[in-house]
C-alpha cells in the first residue's frame, strides 16, 4: 500500500510540514521586506522538497527554478527599486474590529476547507485510468507531458498567451527600455558566465528532450534558460530592450507555433488541437522547443523590465544589445 506509514517518512514529512508553516508565518509577519523575501526563497525550496515527497517531480523542478529562484529574483529587484528612499513596510491600516472580523472569517474559511479535505474520499482513480488508457496515442511516455501538451493542450496554449500578456504589461509600465548597470561587471562574474552559460544551455536542451520520457519538459527547460539569460543581463553594462531584434521574435515564437499547429489540426482534421497519432510525438517536440524559447525570453523580459529605472540616461544612437566592458574598472 502506497500510503503506509513508516517512521522515517512520517518524521520527515512532519518536520517538513512544520518548517513550511513556520517559514510562511515568519515571512508574512516580518516588516523587514528583505528578510521576508529571503524567507520566501527558502520557503520555495522547502516546497520543492514537499513536491518530491508527493511524487510530483516535474513540479519540483519547476518550483525550484521558477517559484523559488525567479520569483525571488523579481522580488529583490523590485525591492531595490522601491528602497531608494529606504522605507519600511508599515503596519496595517485596518481598525481593530476590522482585524477581528477578518481573522474570524479567515479562520472559518480555513476550518471549512480543512473539514472538506478531511472528508474527501480516500481514493480517486478515474482520471488516472483515463490518462493511462490513452497514453499510447499521446506520442510521449511521460504522463504529465502528455496531459500538458496533448490532452489539455488548450490550457497550455492559453498559458503561453498569459505569459506574453504579462510581458506586455510589464513593458508597458516600465519607465525606460534601457537598463543601465551601476558599474562595469566584475571580471569574476564574466568568468562565471563563461563557465556556466554553455552548461546552462546544454542542461536546458537535455531537460527539454527528456520531458518525453521522464520528468522534464518545456517549462523547466525554459526556466533554466531564463536563469542563464538573467545572469547575462546582470553582467551587461547596458541592455537596450527597444533595440533588440532577437528578443521580440523569441517571445512570440512559442505562441505562434502553437497557434499554427492548432489551426493546422483544425483545418486538416476538423478538431482543434487534436494531433494525428503518428505525428503526435514530433508535433509535441516542436511545440515544446518553441515554447522553451518563448518562456525563457518572457522571463528574461519580465526581469529586465522590472529592473529598468527612470534614472537611466537617454539611450544613444548605437543599437547594440549587449555591451560587455572587458577592461577592469574596479574602483
Amino acid at each position, binding site marked *: 500500500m502506497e*500510503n503506509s506509514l513508516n517512521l522515517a*517518512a512520517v518524521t520527515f*514529512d512532519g518536520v517538513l510540514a512544520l518548517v*513550511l508553516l513556520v517559514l*510562511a508565518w515568519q515571512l*508574512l509577519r516580518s516588516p523587514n521586506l528583505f528578510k*521576508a523575501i529571503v524567507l520566501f526563497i527558502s*520557503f*520555495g525550496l522547502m516546497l520543492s522538497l*514537499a*513536491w518530491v*515527497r*508527493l*511524487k510530483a517531480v*516535474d*513540479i519540483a523542478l*519547476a518550483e525550484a527554478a*521558477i517559484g523559488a529562484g525567479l520569483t525571488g529574483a*523579481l*522580488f529583490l*529587484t*523590485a*525591492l531595490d*527599486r*522601491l528602497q531608494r528612499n529606504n522605507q519600511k*513596510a*508599515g*503596519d496595517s*491600516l*485596518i481598525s481593530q474590529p476590522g*482585524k477581528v472580523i*477578518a481573522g474570524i472569517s*479567515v479562520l472559518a474559511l*480555513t476550518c471549512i*476547507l480543512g473539514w472538506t*479535505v*478531511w472528508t474527501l*474520499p480516500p*481514493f*480517486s482513480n478515474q*482520471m*488516472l485510468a483515463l490518462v493511462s488508457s490513452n497514453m499510447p496515442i499521446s506520442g510521449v511516455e511521460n*504522463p*504529465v507531458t*502528455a*496531459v*500538458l501538451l496533448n490532452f*489539455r493542450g488548450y*490550457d*497550455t496554449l492559453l*498559458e503561453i498567451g498569459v*505569459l506574453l500578456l*504579462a510581458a506586455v504589461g*510589464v513593458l508597458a509600465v*516600465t519607465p525606460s527600455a534601457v537598463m543601465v548597470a551601476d558599474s562595469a561587471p566584475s571580471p569574476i562574474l564574466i568568468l562565471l558566465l563563461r563557465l556556466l552559460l554553455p552548461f546552462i544551455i546544454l542542461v536546458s536542451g537535455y531537460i527539454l528532450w527528456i520531458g518525453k520520457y521522464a520528468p522534464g519538459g518545456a*517549462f523547466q527547460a525554459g526556466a533554466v534558460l531564463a536563469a542563464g539569460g538573467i545572469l547575462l543581463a546582470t553582467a551587461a553594462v547596458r541592455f537596450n530592450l527597444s533595440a533588440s531584434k532577437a528578443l521580440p521574435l523569441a517571445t512570440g515564437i512559442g505562441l505562434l507555433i502553437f497557434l499554427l499547429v492548432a489551426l493546422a489540426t483544425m483545418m486538416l482534421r476538423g478538431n482543434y488541437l487534436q494531433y494525428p497519432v503518428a505525428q503526435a510525438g514530433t508535433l509535441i517536440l516542436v511545440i515544446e522547443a518553441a515554447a522553451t524559447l518563448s518562456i525563457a525570453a*518572457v522571463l528574461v523580459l*519580465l526581469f529586465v*523590465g*522590472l529592473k529598468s529605472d527612470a534614472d537611466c540616461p537617454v539611450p544613444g544612437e548605437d543599437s547594440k544589445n549587449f555591451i560587455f566592458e572587458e577592461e577592469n574598472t574596479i574602483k
Partner: protein
Amino acid sequence: MTIPLLYALVGVVLLGMGLYSLVMYSHLVRKILALNVSGAGVFLFLVAAADRTSGPLPDPVPHAMVLTGIVVAVSATALALALTCRIHQVSGTTQLTDNEPD
C-alpha cells in the same frame, strides 16, 4: 492520517495565513508575498489530492494544472511588482491609503 492528507491540511492553513495577511497589511509588496503564499497552499492541496490513487502512480492531471499555475503565478507576480514600482514612482508611496471622502 496519511501523508497526502497532511500536506493538504498544510496547504489549507497556508491559504488561510496568506488570505489574512493579504487583508491585514497595507504595504503592496507584502500583499504580493501573501498572494504567493496562498497560491503555494492551493498548489499543495491540488497535488496532495492527486496522490489519492490506489497504485504507485499519482494522477497527472492536477500536476499539469499546478505546473500551469506556477508559471501563471510568476507572471502575475511580475506584473504586480511592475505596477507597484510604477505606483511608487508616481505617488511616492507603496502603502494603500484609506479612501478619504472628497
